[in-house]
């Protein structure tokens, strides 16, 4: 009788420790995005962002988590992706996310690219705690 939307609190966590987990994380991300009504193009952006963030975890930290959940701000639906690890941290955050036209910027982490395709981008990183990247993409 109660019509609670099951996607309001949808959340999943994929532990990422190997390159195979990258595919798992991005496939689940795509499925959630499509369930939330994102267009194919937008879902591809979400999946690609997850792929890049998960890859960073594997390459630079060894292991970590990708957490994806649905959000709503009252008027629109969106997806939040949190990529966190306990790796060595990123030294120069400004350099890491700097976006120029040239694709060689960004310390090879692909973060400027990810930042371009999401609506909100936050990053916290230090030697002790590791790195956490939080990105949000709203459905149009």
């Amino acid at each position, binding site marked *: 009788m109660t019509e609670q939307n099951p996607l309001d609190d949808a959340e999943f966590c994929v532990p990422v420790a190997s390159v195979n987990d990258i595919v798992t994380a991005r496939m689940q991300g795509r499925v959630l995005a499509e369930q939330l009504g994102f267009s194919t193009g937008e879902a*591809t952006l979400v999946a690609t962002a997850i792929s890049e963030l998960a890859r960073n975890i594997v390459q630079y930290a060894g292991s970590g988590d990708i957490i994806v959940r649905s959000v709503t701000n009252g008027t629109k639906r969106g997806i939040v992706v949190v990529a966190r690890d306990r790796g060595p941290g990123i030294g120069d955050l400004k350099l890491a996310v700097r976006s120029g036209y040239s694709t060689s910027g960004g310390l090879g982490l692909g973060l400027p690219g990810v930042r371009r395709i999401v609506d909100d981008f936050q990053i916290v990183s230090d030697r002790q705690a590791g790195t956490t990247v939080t990105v949000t993409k709203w459905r149009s």
Partner: protein
Amino acid sequence: MSVPILKQAQYLIATIQSALSDEDLLALQTALVEKVGKYRSRGVIVDVTALDVLDSFASRTLRDIAHIIRLRGAETVIVGVQPEVAFAMVQLGITLEKVSTALDLEEGLAYLDKRLQHARAEH
């Protein structure tokens, strides 16, 4: 999951299935190099129609494949990049620089034929 590679005259056609893992990509690289040598192929088509995400790793590997194949005397063409995937790639700044691309298998074969004609004409 290994990628099927077909021989068509002097070309090789590798059709990538979706959900390609990193290992699969690297295995593809090895298999293509081996087969190009074995059949003395002049061209390789890598069909990525089924790929729903082309991230930086995949892009680098495809570039590496094209580079290595070129060293073996063959030309590589990537075909079947989907509009949404192309859009995501350019937004992320992922390029397939210096790698030839065509819309689909048919276009890819036409492109290789033309290139080979020119190559022959030069001789």
